[in-house]
């Protein structure tokens, strides 16, 4: 096994996903097959290859420090599940 049900539950908790035990078990099997498949990559010898973070060779994609117009507030807030015209409203955490 590449992954345990406990690990799945831990990752789910980090992602704020509420998984039932059966769902977690089903996911464990699926994730295990995905991880096993990705393991195929380990068959390649990469000892001589520099670690890379990007598939393209572009570097230094900069913009100048110039002001651009922001969104009108109504538009900025429009997708919020709850808002009061000024701010997004969320359940209190602390």
């Amino acid at each position, binding site marked *: 096994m590449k992954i345990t049900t406990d690990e799945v539950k831990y990752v789910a908790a980090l992602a704020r996903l509420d998984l039932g035990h059966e769902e977690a078990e089903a996911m464990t099997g699926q994730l295990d097959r995905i991880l096993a498949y990705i393991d195929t990559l380990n068959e390649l010898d990469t000892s001589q290859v520099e670690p890379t973070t990007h598939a393209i060779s572009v*570097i230094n*994609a900069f913009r*100048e420090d110039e*002001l651009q117009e*922001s*969104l009108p*507030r109504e538009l*900025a807030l429009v997708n919020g599940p709850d808002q009061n015209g*000024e701010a997004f409203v*969320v359940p209190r955490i602390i």
Partner: protein
Amino acid sequence: MEFETVIGLEIHAQLKTNTKIFCGCSTEFGKPPNTNTCPVCLGMPGVLPVLNRTVVEYAIRMGLATNCEINRTNQFARKNYFYPDLPKGYQISQFELPICEHGWVEITVDDTIKRIGLTRIHMEEDAGKLIHDDHEPVSYVDLNRTGTPLIEIVSEPDLRSPEEAAAYLRKLHAIVRYLDICDGNMQEGSFRCDANISLRPKGQEAFGTRTELKNMNSFRNVQKALEYEVRRQRDILLDGGKVVQQTLLWDPDTNRTNAMRSKEEAHDYRYFPDPDLVPIVISEEWINEITVSLPELPHQRKSRLIETLGLSEDDAGIITGDRELADYFETALVRYDNGKKLANWIMTELLRELKERDQEISQCQVTPDGLAELLTMVDKGTISGKIAKTVFQEMMVSGKDAGTVVKEKNLVQMSDEGDLLKMIDEIISANPDQVTEYRGGKTKLMGFFVGQLMQKTKGRANPQLANQLLAKALDNK
């Protein structure tokens, strides 16, 4: 048992750019909630962040000014966590490849110079602001600050006392102000600091369990919070207890630290390189360009003032510790070239008056030219040094210039011998007993006579002349 304190600081400095780190929204403070936002900083799906070149330049400036190595290739990473002030579900930061590493600055505490290591400086975006409702169990999310560029400066655990921590913080504050990359406003949160602090028995190599302190938004609070935490941890250890690793918030009202309420789970940020942002590769040319454009730094300015003006180490240190104060000093120096005397006035009168009013030098009613004029009046004998202090206080309150205050309050120094002699005669006739005693050898009474004369002249008598004339009048008869 004796303990050694070990402190490391993490400083976040908001960079003084016009726009955010990955989009063109304004970074202006105090705008109505959610008016400085766009799809990029709101974390809408499908948007692409593009790095603000000035942010990289400012980070390099800071790195060069603090003797860091600049990583020629560096990279952004995603720091994943869920919180309502972070719309994307991750903060764009730097992890394995920060822009600067292995730097140092020097601090002076108790006349000893000490080198403090900088582990790293990295670029990242700020989060938004949560405003908690007073009555309902809800919070309001303002994303104006989201995406404001920050540099995080992480020190080595090299600080050995709250005093050293405060000196280090002041030093870095002075550097960002000299470089003009951050406005340094601690109240508004554009320069903030967290501290890791632990105690270990003297001589022990291994670090003790540390706590993390947050919410210290002034130099004073940083030192006070650390001093409190040293006492708290020492008491626990002396009682044979164990310090619990936790995050504590400083409460400036009760002067104590309180545990931050948070879920028990450990943070697991699962950093990984941000695929949206390509690597940053810094050329030698760019570094050279920035190197030559660096302004004079606090320690360089301090040495210059000591060497060229003969200021003391302490005076020069305090004056150059605040860029605005040093600028004030040097502006006044253009019109008044006695640097030592000027420094003296700034160190005593000016700083005391500012402190009493809880003001910054930028809010000072007395301009550098105004101070120069006042001191020139003292040198010319127009007013006495003592009266100058009164005039200065009035200038601090009303903002009027020295000449006007002196005229309005009729404070011009009395240097006319005839006028003074007349009053001296009156004093001598009015105090026959003291005169006899004085002439009988009790010369300490001179102070009494000078006092009388000062009272009569409302402090305006030229002190040297007053002493001279009094001595003559009393000795001669």
